[in-house]
């Protein structure tokens, strides 16, 4: 066992954990903002829009995240046209490529989770809202969105955990997040157990915080569904 190496590299791990957290938080926040309206469009009245959203979620749920990341990071860079375009200063940055891919990927999953939640709102609730004479906007903000989100909470919680762990893929395109730090130590000190156990402990801690927060939210906002589940 060689824990001295880990102790020496703790500052590097701290930097890595910070980057892991940043990647997860930014991806999840952006994807949440996108997935809520997309869930409505996915259940919307216009078939063309409905199928367009379905097409998008199928493509991004139907291919591995790593393949998507390589396509965006290495694949797009192959085209002279893209390298000469106004997007290149953005696309040449690994950070932008990683966030773009993560957001597109997790938005696809979140959209389907939310759309499923929306379909499971009892018809009675919507009829009651109409009977009260609520405008469509009021219906959406008072009934549909809260009902959809609370029903999606357990599944969405899982998606958030998966996204947190998926940030490990960022290390394949030079970003030194938690897994990247572990791999770099492996390559420079020729040990594997200690660096990866340390990385695992960091992910476990972050997940624990996330799960605890989720339980609080569930109790506070989704409590009214409890009796039905139990």
């Amino acid at each position, binding site marked *: 066992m060689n824990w001295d190496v880990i102790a020496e590299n703790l500052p590097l791990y701290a930097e890595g954990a910070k980057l892991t957290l940043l990647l997860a938080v930014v991806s999840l926040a952006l994807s949440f903002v996108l997935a809520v309206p997309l869930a409505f469009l996915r259940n919307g009245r216009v078939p063309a829009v409905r199928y367009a959203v379905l097409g998008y979620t199928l493509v991004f749920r139907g291919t591995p995240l790593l393949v998507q990341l390589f396509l965006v990071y*290495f694949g797009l860079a192959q085209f002279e046209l893209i390298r000469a375009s106004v997007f290149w200063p953005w696309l*040449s940055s690994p950070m932008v490529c990683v966030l773009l891919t993560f957001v597109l990927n997790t938005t696809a999953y979140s959209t389907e989770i939310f759309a499923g939640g929306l379909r499971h709102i009892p018809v009675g609730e919507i009829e009651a809202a109409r009977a009260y004479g609520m405008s469509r906007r009021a219906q959406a903000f008072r009934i549909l969105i809260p009902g959809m989100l609370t029903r999606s909470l357990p599944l969405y919680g899982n998606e958030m955990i998966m996204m947190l762990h998926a940030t490990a893929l960022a290390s*394949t395109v*030079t970003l030194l997040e938690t897994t990247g730090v572990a791999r770099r130590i*492996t*390559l420079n000190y*020729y040990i*594997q157990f200690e660096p990866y156990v340390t990385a695992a402990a960091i992910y476990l801690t972050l997940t624990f915080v996330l799960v605890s927060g989720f339980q609080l939210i569930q109790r506070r906002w989704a409590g009214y569904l409890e009796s039905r589940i139990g």
Partner: protein
Amino acid sequence: MKAILKSLCATMIVAATLTTAQAAETLDIATDATFPPFEYIDSEGKLVGYDIELMQAVCEAAQLDCNIFNAAWDGMIPGLIDGKYDALISQLTVTEKRRQVIAFSDIYDRPIFRFVAKKGAALDITPEGLAGKTIAVQTGTPMDAYVTSHYPTATITRYDTGSAPYLELTAGRADLHISYQAQVIHGFLNSDAGKDFELVGPQLTGADAKEFGEGVAIAINKKNEALVESVNKGLAIIRENGKLDAINAKYFGQ
């Protein structure tokens, strides 16, 4: 049910002993096949290259039964230390730091290291000249150690494979890459992707910086002194009978 489980267990135990018995005879030799022309996967999916042919010749000469296969670079040296592999052949540079954890055969080549950059980039290969420039390297290689200690003001990006830095060069994300000169020429400059690039800066060897080590050798588990001996014997035989010269001539025309 119990009887079935019992016989199943028995078969598994027999199978396990059989495979370990076989493993003891065949040597597992790992290589990181992202490094043409030394070790790479050809268009038919076969493991080929200078190191592969050399290893096969050594095994034949020393009468060893070798199984050479592709493995990920980041697990290779730890895998050798832990006994997962019997030996590694992957243009491994002999350095003081590596000697502390693994054993090496006799040195079979002394590579030259060289920077590569876009034609006409007119880069000044000094620590001051490369300040702020991006240098792409494969993590944990002598080249990584060299640029990390000699070009602290440059931005160094590190990759798991030997081939990714070239993608970054052609994409324009990296200004420079440093690797074995022969690999740069045969694996990149001679290909279509490398036509706009050229070797830059001086030819570097272990004499210029200690990070480049003494030369390249076959890595072997420290406890397996017998294998070091037989590999060295094999190397001596192919050096003498002209086989090594033939492989050199085939790949580098010397």
